[in-house]
């Protein structure tokens, strides 16, 4: 069963890993609705 299809996606990206908007682009292609996307910064 798909993990993302039809689900609400919360995205916690990382400035020095993968930023939120880049993850959101991917997640949307899997049929999830992005309800929140943020990017954290440790530096």
């Amino acid at each position, binding site marked *: 069963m798909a993990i993302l299809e039809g689900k609400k996606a919360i995205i916690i990206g990382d400035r*020095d890993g993968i*930023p*939120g908007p*880049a993850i959101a682009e991917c997640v949307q292609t899997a049929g999830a609705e992005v309800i929140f996307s943020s*990017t954290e*910064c*440790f*530096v």
Partner: protein
Amino acid sequence: MNSVIKGAGYVLAHTPQMVIYNGTTQTTERIVNPESEYLKELGSHLRSYEECVNYWPNQVYIGNATPEDLSQVEFPYYDKVKEGAVRYGKYGEIMPEEEFILLVQACDQFEVVKLDKDFVCAHKEALAADPIITEDIIARVEAGTELSEIEAAVKEEHAEGLYVAGKLVGCVKRAHDIDVNLSAHVMHENLMSKASNVLALLYGIQNAGISKDDVEYVIDCAEEACGDMNQRGGGNFAKAAAEIAGLKNATGSDSRGFCAGPSHALIEAAALVKSGAYKCVAVTAGGCTAKLGMNGKDHVKKGLPILEDCLAGFCVILSENDGVNPEINLDILGRHTVGTGSAPQNVIGSLVADPLERAGLKITDIDKYSPEMQNPDITKPAGAGDVPMANYKMIAALAVKKGELDRKELASFSAEHGLTGWAPTQGHIPSGVPYIGFAREDILAGKIKNAMIIGKGSLFLGRMTNLFDGVSFVIQANTKAEAEAAAGVSEEEVKELIAKAMKDFAASLMAE
């Protein structure tokens, strides 16, 4: 003609008490979890001034060791001692907290900083003994007040305390009773930024070998904002710092861009000089109290000292082309645009591959890359990884993708074209600029021919846009002689030709 890098200054102020009282990780913890183990343990993890001076990355920052030296030191760095470490370095110094507090008071022009008179008495001589601190600045240090007055201000008027070894020695009072933009908290933050900025400016000018009167424009590129409730970010740190530093002929303004600020500011400064608008521009920034101890929880949890215990400042002096110093080449500028997106490959592509391609260069044509030079000793235990290394891996991966580097050379790329990070996590401070001092020297010595400085900024933290940001530029060996040879006539010759033409013209007029 491109502008040149005349010199650079890099300074640290060791401020462990401000870690406790002003770093946002700690101030937040005191609100949400006042009885936490972290707050209880914090004090025993603070470094002494000597430990801070002996710390390898700090010695690299002020120029007493090179990034190459640091790369030979076994990781982690916090448990190693740099032999022969001292307060003063080629680029600047590590100022102790006591003296820095006095400098802060000297930078205050609205009587918001109040110091205990005994404290002033005990440390004024030490500050005066600092060769970079001028008599003008020392003359600004006030005699101080009774401690009881300071205690009352902290207790009753929301003043921010200034501490040394846990003891109250002064305070920063609010500058307005109602306006939050002039609250004690904001005044404290801004005065610390201003004071560290002044110190960096003084070293930048000294190291560039110029007179204070030569500086015509100052750009401050820190991350603070000053103003009142009607213009919260009105500015102008640049001119305020220039005044204390004694730059009588300078005006200036603030430029902001999160951590990418310094790179933006340097490009702007280089353009101002190249255009002829100003002959000599100082790009400068002070440090950020909010970020002190930012990753402290992770450091304490892992038994490390609090490594984010210094305010940092830097200053780079750009001037008209002198035919000697390395230049900022404005023909090779990388920029993350609105349309670039936030995919890491697009970000690094826009900053590194695209500008080089436009100039007909390959990624391997740049000898050294200075992206974000955060000290991995600080970031690794906090789960943010080795930031410079991650940048080098991305640049190398991009070079492989473009067929400019063999996959087998991926690992060696970082060693050849990279640097080990040494900069404190003070936001804008690590962003490319810590290498400019070394790059200037390495290019002058012929060790490298060029370097790319890359600044990146997390604009989304301001909640105005989700965009990322970044700009980059290339520093190269001086090309004035070549440019003149290519042009056929030198500037001097042009001047002579014009003078001759004028004379001839005048002569012809007289004849008539």
